[in-house]
Structure formats: structure tokens, C-alpha cells
């Protein structure tokens, strides 16, 4: 049997991926144009922010992180949540999940790219990001948790890109993947997924001056909510992928993810309740941020509608997911997934990052309302992420359905 000439087949693979990623129906082109338009709006808003300063945002010295870091935190969870497909597929040999697990890995890649974009959008000096590159910059590792986050997020991005890329490539050239080239990375990615959201929680929970964040339950809460939002996103997107591409699979993966969510959605609410109890029963300095968040403080209550919306969405979704109907009625299941996805998004951002700053460490009550510019940048980055995910899926599906194969030397 002749050896595969990777120097020939790999460029072929990339070229093929590029072709199929950019080929599609009229609807596909319309979708891409729509996303591109949103990306442009966001890019333009960001360019104004860099030029004229972050005074254009609603942030202040009191509330010094806002919508960007909120979204960053949530998206780290989405990336980590994708591991809930990897665990059943590889640890429990769920064959149906195994067939679609690559979609989860690609989702992690897209989510991580969004994370990086949100962090860059939050920087006052994006021209100086190179100061963080080890070797030429000054990387404050291991003391700064932010440097740990840079390492684990980029590591997770590379691991997922490698596993997905390797499996797609071997399938493209019609070879059986060599387990030693991907299985160790799959197991590494499971542990790594936990690490990315743990480290992200440590960013906040390690700050002694912020009692609202300074709680050991923050990392477990982050993980629980990630394992709600991740599966919720995947359940809905799998159905869209099934409808829009030639990829054929049953409801099995969705049902597995539903089983996972039935546990995590309750766990997430339980830990929130445990936190709320400790804050309010103890009182004192520990409760002021929570008081402001849930009920308002000294006549200021900008976050109250947000958090109660989140609680309503998460509790309702939890009940809906528990009912037998969630197994049989896809519309019911999807509604619950969308509700809890938005619920967790609020809870991680407006419900967690923002109240950590209110009141300030000197107890000034300064509220935060995002400006239109921040919403534009946010929409732009989400559109960019969805655009990247669409392109990755478009490139992957012809290979997964065996429509795309390399022109092998031995076939000639």
C-alpha cells in the first residue's frame, strides 16, 4: 500500500475546506451577508472606541468591567460546555454522540475565538497585546490569574482545533484515525474544559476586596452554569444543522444532553440558592451587592429587572426540562433551551460581573448601563463567532457525510 503523501493531501484538504465553506445556497449567502453586516457594525463601533477612548462605554472607575467581560465569562462557559458532548462520546461510548461530537469541538473553537475578541475589545490599549506574549513581552505568570486564563484558553483552542482538524483530515483521506494522535488529546480536553472555567472563576473569586465574588462556590457555580448553557446551545444547533446540512443523525445526542441538563440546571439553581442564603443570612458587607442586585439599594435598582428575568427564565426552563414533554416535543425542549441559555447569559453577566462592582470598594453606589456602542460591539462579536461556526460546519459536513474525499495517489 502506498504511503499517503500528506504534502499533497493536506493542501487539498485545506482547499476543499475553503471551497465548501464558501459554497452554498442563496439562503447561505444571504445568511453570511447578514452576519458580515453585523460584524462590520461592531468593528466600526470598536474602531471608534479605540480612537476616542472607552469613555464611549457606560463603564466607569466604579464599574470598570461591563458588557464585554460579562460576555467573555459566559462564552468561556459555552466553550467548556461543549465537553458535555465529548464525555458521553468518549468516556461512555455513546456511538450516536460520537458521530456528532466534532460539532461540539468546533463550537468550542468558535466560542473561544469570541472570548478572545471580547477580551481585546475590553482593552484600553489593544495595540499593546504583544506585551502579554511570553518571550517578547512580560508575562506575569504564575502570579496573575489572567495569565493562567490566557494559557488555558489558548491551550483549549489548540486542543479542540487539533482533535477536530485531525479527525476531519483522516476522514478526508479515507484513513482510519490513529488513536495515539487524538485520544490523549480528547481526554486532555475533558480536564482542560474544567480548567478554563475554573481559572475564569478564580479571576474573580481570588479578589479579597470584592466580597460578592470572593466565594469558593464561584468555580463550581461557573461549571454548573456552563453545563447548562453549553448543552442548551448544542441541542438547538444540532437540529438546525440536521435540517440545513446533509448530516444524518437521530435524536439520541439531544436526549443525552437533555439528561445532562436535567441535572445541571437544578445544580446551578441549587448553588445560586446556597449563595443567596449565605449572603442574606450573614448580612453585613457580604450582602450589600446582593441586596443591590435583587432588591435595589438606596433607591438604585438598575439590575433588579435583569436578575429576576434570569431567575424566571432559569426556573421555568428547569421545570419544563423536567416534564416528560421535553423528551417528545422538540418545540417545548427548544423553548426551554433558549430560555435557560438567555437566563444563564444574564446570570453570568448582569447578575455576577456587574454587581461585583456595586457598591464600589469605598461603597459608592454608581450604576452601570451599557451604551449603544457596547451593544454594537457585542452584536458584532457574536455575529463573528456565529459566522466562524457556520464556516467550520460548512467545511466539515461534506467530509463527515463522505461527500468529500481526497484524490488519492493510489486511486489513479
Amino acid at each position, binding site marked *: 500500500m502506498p504511503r499517503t503523501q500528506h504534502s499533497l493531501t493536506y493542501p487539498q484538504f485545506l482547499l476543499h475546506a475553503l471551497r465548501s465553506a464558501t459554497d452554498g445556497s442563496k439562503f447561505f449567502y444571504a445568511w453570511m451577508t447578514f452576519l458580515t453586516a453585523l460584524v462590520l457594525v461592531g*468593528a*466600526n463601533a470598536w474602531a471608534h472606541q479605540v480612537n476616542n*477612548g472607552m469613555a464611549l462605554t457606560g463603564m466607569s*472607575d466604579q464599574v470598570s468591567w461591563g458588557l464585554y467581560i460579562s460576555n467573555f465569562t459566559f462564552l468561556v462557559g459555552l466553550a467548556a460546555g461543549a465537553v458535555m458532548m465529548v464525555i458521553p462520546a468518549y468516556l461512555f461510548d455513546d456511538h450516536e454522540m460520537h458521530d456528532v461530537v466534532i460539532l461540539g469541538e468546533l463550537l468550542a473553537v468558535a466560542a473561544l475565538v469570541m472570548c478572545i475578541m471580547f477580551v481585546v475589545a475590553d482593552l*484600553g*490599549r489593544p495595540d499593546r497585546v504583544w506585551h502579554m506574549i511570553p518571550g517578547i513581552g512580560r508575562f506575569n505568570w504564575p502570579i496573575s490569574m489572567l495569565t493562567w486564563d490566557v494559557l488555558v484558553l489558548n491551550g483549549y483552542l489548540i486542543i479542540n482545533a487539533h482533535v477536530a482538524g485531525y479527525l476531519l483530515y483522516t476522514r478526508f483521506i479515507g484513513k482510519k484515525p490513529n488513536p495515539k494522535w487524538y485520544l490523549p488529546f480528547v481526554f486532555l480536553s475533558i480536564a482542560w474544559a474544567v480548567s478554563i472555567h475554573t481559572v475564569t472563576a478564580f479571576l474573580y473569586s481570588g479578589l479579597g476586596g470584592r466580597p460578592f465574588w470572593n466565594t469558593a462556590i464561584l468555580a463550581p457555580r461557573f461549571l454548573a452554569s456552563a453545563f447548562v448553557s453549553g448543552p442548551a446551545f448544542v441541542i438547538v444547533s444540532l437540529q438546525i444543522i440536521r435540517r440545513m446540512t446533509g448530516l444524518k443523525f437521530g435524536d439520541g445526542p439531544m436526549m443525552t444532553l437533555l439528561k445532562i441538563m436535567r441535572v445541571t440546571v437544578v445544580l446551578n439553581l441549587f448553588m445560586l440558592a446556597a449563595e443567596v442564603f449565605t449572603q442574606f443570612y450573614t448580612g453585613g458587607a457580604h450582602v450589600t451587592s446582593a441586596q443591590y442586585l435583587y432588591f435595589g439599594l438606596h433607591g438604585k435598582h438598575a439590575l433588579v429587572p435583569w436578575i429576576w428575568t434570569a431567575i424566571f427564565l432559569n426556573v421555568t426552563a428547569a421545570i419544563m426540562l423536567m416534564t416528560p414533554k421535553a423528551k417528545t416535543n422538540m418545540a417545548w425542549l427548544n423553548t426551554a433551551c433558549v430560555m435557560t441559555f438567555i437566563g444563564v447569559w444574564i446570570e453570568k453577566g448582569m447578575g455576577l460581573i456587574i454587581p461585583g462592582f456595586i457598591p464600589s470598594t469605598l461603597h459608592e453606589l454608581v450604576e452601570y448601563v451599557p451604551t449603544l456602542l457596547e451593544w454594537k460591539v457585542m452584536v458584532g462579536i457574536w455575529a463573528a463567532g456565529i459566522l466562524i461556526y457556520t464556516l467550520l460546519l460548512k467545511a466539515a459536513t461534506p467530509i463527515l457525510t463522505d461527500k468529500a474525499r481526497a484524490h488519492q495517489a493510489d486511486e489513479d
Partner: protein
Amino acid sequence: MSEAPNPDTVGGLTRRDAVKAFGATLGAAAFARALAPLSEWKDGMDFDSFVQKHYKELGPNDMDVVLRRLEKSTKEEYGADVEIRDIKPLDGVQYGYALNLSTCIGCRKCAEACHIENNHDRATGGSYIRVLEMKQGSIDLEHGDSTYEHPVPQPNRYYMPVQCQQCDNPPCVHVCPVQATWKEKDGIVVIDYNWCIGCRYCEAACPYHARRFNWAKPEIPAEEVNPVQAYLSNRIRPQGVVEKCHFCLHRTREGKQPACLEACPTGARVFGNLLDPNSDIRKVLATKRVFVLKEELGTRPRFFYFFDK
């Protein structure tokens, strides 16, 4: 492989590829147009500042080049002739600051002096000092108010100015991902404004709200710019970086008192060398019952408070 020859193929490219290439070009052009405001951004477009090394990696000659460049750009942007120096910490000196809460009347003269001395943005009225009006009977900051606008002192109130506590265990320094902030050997926590990436993690980490961010480019009329400047202290900060109190190191490292101390009409402030047994600060520490803010956090401040009576 048996592929039907495509009549639209020209040199291996299909018409579809050509349309795609056109679309991609259009997209790239639109993207460049969307990012056009970046080209007006002066700070980010200056090559020499872009490649400038970290403060600790600059040799004496490099530093000289940087200082002259900064003076030149201050002249261009603000119309002010300034002298920027790199003033090093002195041997055998550890700075400490104490504040007498019994005599402070909350007049905010210290905050005002800081505003002028340290070239803060005029419109936002920045200062490194916040004065809290506190209720008698509690030192809980929750009962403080920094936004009062009435004559002082008020009955049954006392006043607590808060600025950088120059902690010996500074959370802000630990969290900085790029080592843009550090503790000098005389105890002052400083920032390299040309190295800070503006992530504001230090602002989140500081328990005393001592750090400020330059949300926009500071604006100061030429005649109001304080021309006596230092690289690590009061030079006009660029947009998008963090700043904080530096114990007026451009004054104190040359034997002068901080601007806030000189401005205080009641003599509530005591500054000096903790290693000098005859200094006023040592006398305060030896004879008064001093306390530090949020001692339970283990930050070990160099800023002490005391009541006299």
C-alpha cells in the same frame, strides 16, 4: 476521476470562484472602511511608542530617548514645555503616610492639590484622593459618602481621605498580567503608563478604589500643565491606561513633601521615612493608636489613620 469539463472554467477557476473572490474583496474593503477611525488614532500609530520596551528593560540611553520623545509629544499635543525625568528611589528610605482623622475637616484641598500637581484631566476633575464623609460612631466605609456638596465640617461627621495605600502586599500588582505595575524599593507602587494594556484587572482587585483609568485622553490647557514631571508619576497619561497615587515621587524622592500634605490647612497629614527614627511619621506610629483600612484583607498598607482625641 471522471469530472465533466466545466464550460465556465478558465485556467482551473470556475465562474463561481471568481464571484467568490469578488465578494471577498468587497468584504475586505468594507471591513477596512469600518475600521477607518483607527487611522485617526494617533497614540497607536506611533511606531517608537509601539515598540518601546518595559521600564525595567530600558537602559539609561534608551530612557533618555523615551523621555525626550515624551517631552516632544507633550509639546505637540498640549503646547506645553515640560521636563520629564526618571527619578530613582533613594537608598535607606521607606515611605509611610499617616492621617489624623481628628483634625481633617473634609475641605478636599488635598484632592484639589493632587488634581493640579498630577496633571489630571480638567473636565472630569480627577484626583487620586477621595474624601469620605463618615458618621460618628462607625468606621464602616459603608456609612461613608464621597459625593457631599455642602459646607464642612458638618456636626457629628468626620472625614476620611482615601488614596493609594501603597500596600506591602498589593493585590493590584499581583493581578497585572504584564507586570506594568510594581512596588519600588522605597515602597511606592508605580505604573509604567507606556506598558499598561488597559485591562483594568488592577482596578477590580484594589480594595481601596485607588486606581483610575484614562477613559479618554486627558485635556489640560497649556498654561495649567505642571511642567515638573517624572516618567513614573505625574506626566500626562496616555488614553486607555491605568493611573494611581505615587506619593508624589517626583517631589518626595527629592526631599519635598507630597502636594496633598502641603495643601492641607489643618496639618492632618504626616509623611516621611519609616527608617528614620527621628521622622514625624515614626513619632506618630510610636505615640498614636494608628489603624489601617481593611486590615483583615492582609494587604499591609503603608497609609495609617489615627484619632488624636
